[in-house]
C-alpha cells in the first residue's frame, strides 16, 4: 500500500533538480515574452490599419490574435518539448548514473514514466502559463471558449506526442545530443514532409481542382490551423474545398489573410471520407490529430518501455498485453468517433 501512495522517486528528484538555477525561469520568461511580442505585433498591425481608415471589427482582432498565438505556441511547444525529454534517459547514461538507477528496485517502466511526468510538468507549466495571455482574445471576442479549449487540448496532445518521441529517441540513442538531433529531424520530417506531400499533390493535380491529402493529418500546424480557422470563417468552409482561397474583398490583415500565406494556404480545414455509408463527410483535421497523437504517444511509450530495460528487452509480458489493448481501444474509439468506415464496419 505504501508503495502505491509513494510518489515516483524520479519525479521528486527531477522536480528538485530541474527547477534549480535560473535556466527554467529564463526559458519560461523568454517563452512568455515571445508570445507577448506576437500578440503585441498583431495588435499593432490592427491599430495601424484602423488608423488608415480600415473598418476593424473587434471579432477580427480576436480571431487574428487566436490564430497567431495558437500557431506560435504550437511552434514553441513542438520545439521545446523534445529539448526537455530527449535527455531523459540518455543523460543518465552519459552521467553514468544509469547503473546506479537500475541496481535499485525501481522498475524501468517507473523510471520512464517518472522521466516523462517530470518533463511534461515543465511543458505543462509553459502551456498553462500562457493561458492568461490567451484570455486576452476573449476581450475582443470572435472566438468561442469552445475553440480555445480545443486549441488547448490539441496543444497538450502535441506536447505529449513530441515529448514521447523525444523520450523514445532518448532511450535509443546513447548520447543526448544525438537523441535531440534525431528527435528534431523526425519532427521536421513529419511537419515539412507532410507539407511537401501536399505541395506535390497540388502541383500534380489538374488546375482548378482542389486536393486534400491525408498527409496533412499528422502535422500539428495543420491541425492547429483547422481549429483557428474554424473560428475565423463563420459558417464554415465548403465541404472538401480549400478554405482560404478565392479573392479577398479587401487587403486587410486578419486571420484569413494570415491563412492566405504559405504554408497555411495549403492547409485544409478537413479531409473527406468518401467511404462513409452516409455519403461523403468532411472531418476536421484536428479531429484526426486528437486520435492520431495519443495513438502515436502510446506506441512511442510502448517501444521505449522495452528499450529502456537493461536486459531481456523484447521479452513480452503482461504490460504488453495491457498496452496492446490500450492501443486497440484508442484506435477503435477514435476510429468510431471519426466515423472511419473500416472501423465502424468492424465494430458493427
Amino acid at each position, binding site marked *: 500500500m505504501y508503495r502505491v501512495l509513494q510518489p515516483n522517486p524520479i519525479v521528486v528528484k527531477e522536480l528538485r533538480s530541474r527547477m534549480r538555477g535560473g535556466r527554467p525561469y529564463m526559458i519560461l520568461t523568454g517563452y512568455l515574452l515571445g508570445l507577448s511580442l506576437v500578440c503585441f505585433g498583431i495588435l499593432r498591425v490592427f491599430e495601424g490599419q484602423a488608423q488608415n481608415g480600415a473598418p476593424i471589427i473587434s471579432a477580427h482582432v480576436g480571431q487574428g490574435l487566436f490564430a497567431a498565438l495558437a500557431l506560435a505556441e504550437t511552434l514553441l511547444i513542438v520545439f521545446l518539448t523534445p529539448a526537455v525529454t530527449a535527455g531523459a534517459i540518455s543523460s543518465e547514461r552519459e*552521467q553514468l548514473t544509469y*547503473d546506479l538507477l*537500475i541496481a535499485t528496485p525501481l522498475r524501468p517502466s517507473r523510471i520512464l514514466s517518472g522521466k516523462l511526468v517530470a518533463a511534461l510538468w515543465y511543458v505543462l507549466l509553459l502551456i498553462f502559463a500562457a493561458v492568461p495571455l490567451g484570455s486576452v482574445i476573449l476581450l475582443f471576442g470572435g472566438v468561442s471558449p469552445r475553440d480555445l479549449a480545443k486549441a488547448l487540448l490539441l496543444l497538450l496532445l502535441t506536447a505529449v506526442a513530441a515529448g514521447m518521441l523525444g523520450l523514445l529517441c532518448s532511450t535509443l540513442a546513447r548520447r543526448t545530443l544525438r537523441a535531440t538531433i534525431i528527435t528534431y529531424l523526425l519532427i521536421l520530417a513529419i511537419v515539412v514532409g507532410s507539407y511537401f506531400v501536399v505541395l506535390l499533390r497540388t502541383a500534380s493535380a489538374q488546375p482548378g481542382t482542389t486536393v486534400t491529402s491525408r498527409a496533412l493529418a499528422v502535422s500539428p500546424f495543420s491541425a492547429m490551423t483547422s481549429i483557428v480557422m474554424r473560428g475565423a470563417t463563420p459558417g464554415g468552409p465548403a465541404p472538401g474545398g480549400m478554405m482560404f482561397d478565392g479573392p479577398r474583398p479587401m487587403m486587410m490583415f486578419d486571420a484569413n489573410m494570415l491563412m492566405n500565406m504559405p504554408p497555411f494556404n495549403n492547409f485544409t480545414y478537413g479531409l473527406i471520407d468518401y467511404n462513409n455509408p452516409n455519403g461523403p463527410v468532411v472531418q476536421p483535421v484536428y479531429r484526426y490529430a486528437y486520435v492520431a497523437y495519443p495513438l502515436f504517444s502510446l506506441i512511442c511509450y510502448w517501444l521505449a518501455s522495452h528499450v529502456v530495460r537493461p*536486459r531481456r528487452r523484447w521479452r513480452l509480458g503482461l504490460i504488453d498485453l495491457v498496452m496492446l489493448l490500450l492501443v486497440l481501444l484508442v484506435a477503435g474509439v477514435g476510429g468510431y468517433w471519426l466515423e472511419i468506415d473500416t472501423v465502424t464496419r468492424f465494430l458493427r
Partner: protein
Amino acid sequence: MTAAIETTNLTKRYGRTVALDQLNLRVQPGTIYGFIGPNGAGKTTTLRMVAGLLEPSAGQVRLLGERLDRDGRTSQRLVGYMPDFFGVYDDLRVWEYLDFFARCHNLPGAKRRSTVEGLLELVDLTPKRDAFVQSLSRGMQQRLCLAHALVHDPPILLLDEPASGLDPRARVELRELLRTLRDMGKTIILSSHILSELAEVCTEMGIMQGGHLVASGTLAEVQRQLGGERQLRFSVLRGVEQARVILAGTAGAGRIDQLEIDTSHSPITSEPTTAHLPELHASATTLSVVWSGDAEATASLISRLVTAGVALTSVVDETNDLEELFLQLTAA
C-alpha cells in the same frame, strides 16, 4: 556455512570474446574479498553479473544461498553496488541524493530520514549535507556513492575500483570505512588493478587474468598458489664462498643464486655494471636463497654466518614478493 557469494561456472561472452570463463568463486560472510587484475581481466564483468546488471552467458550466481532471479530482484535486495565510473546528479544536494536512492528502495518517510542522516554520519559527510553534489571532491563523491549503496542496508557490498583516483589520505579513510563496514557484518567484494591498494585491507583475494581466476584465498594461500617463493637475500662483503657452504648445509634452505650487486635483481650472468657504483658497494655480492625456515631458524642462520666470519652488510627477508609475481603474471 552458506557462502555470501557463490558462483558456479559463471561465464560471460561478448560475441566470440570470452570476458569471463567459468568462474567458480566462494566468498564467506564477513570477508573483504579483493579482485586484482589488469584492465580487461573480467573484474567488472563479474561484479556486474553478481549485481544483477548483466546477464551471464552461462553458469549461475547464488547470494546467501539464494539463486539470482531473472529480473534482478534478489541482487537489488541483497547487494549494494558502486560502479567503477559513477556519475552524480548535478543540481542535487548531498542529502537529496541519498534521499532519492532511499526512495528508490521504498524506504518509508521517517526511516528514510534517519537512514540518510545515519549514512551521512557514517561516511563523514554530515558537514556537507546541504552542499551540491557536483561541488564535492572526488574522495567525498566516492564516499557519497558508497553511502548510496548502503541505503537499503544490504548484507553484500560490491565496490568496483573504489580506491581509484583517490589521494593517499582519502585512501586511508576508505580503508577505515571498509573495516567499519566489515565490523558491521557486511561481506565486501572490491576490485582493483593495483595490488598494494588491497593487500592491507582484504582478508582474501583473487587474482584475475584474461577472464580466469588464477588464484584465490588468503594472501599466503594466493602466494603459494602462484608459486611464489620466500627468499632471504644476504649482501656479503667478504666470505662469499664460506657463506655458500653454510647456506648449502642448512635445513630449510633451497636454491642459492649469486647476484653481483645488492641493488640489482639480475643474475650474475648478466653484464657487470659495477663500474658505475660507488666503491663501497662495488665488492658487495648478494646471495639469494630460497628459504622455508621460521623466524627462529632465520636468526640462527644469521648468527652462524657471522660467527663463521662472513661479513654481512644486510639481510632482507623477501616474503611479500606477491607484487612481483602479480606483475610477472599480468605481463605474460
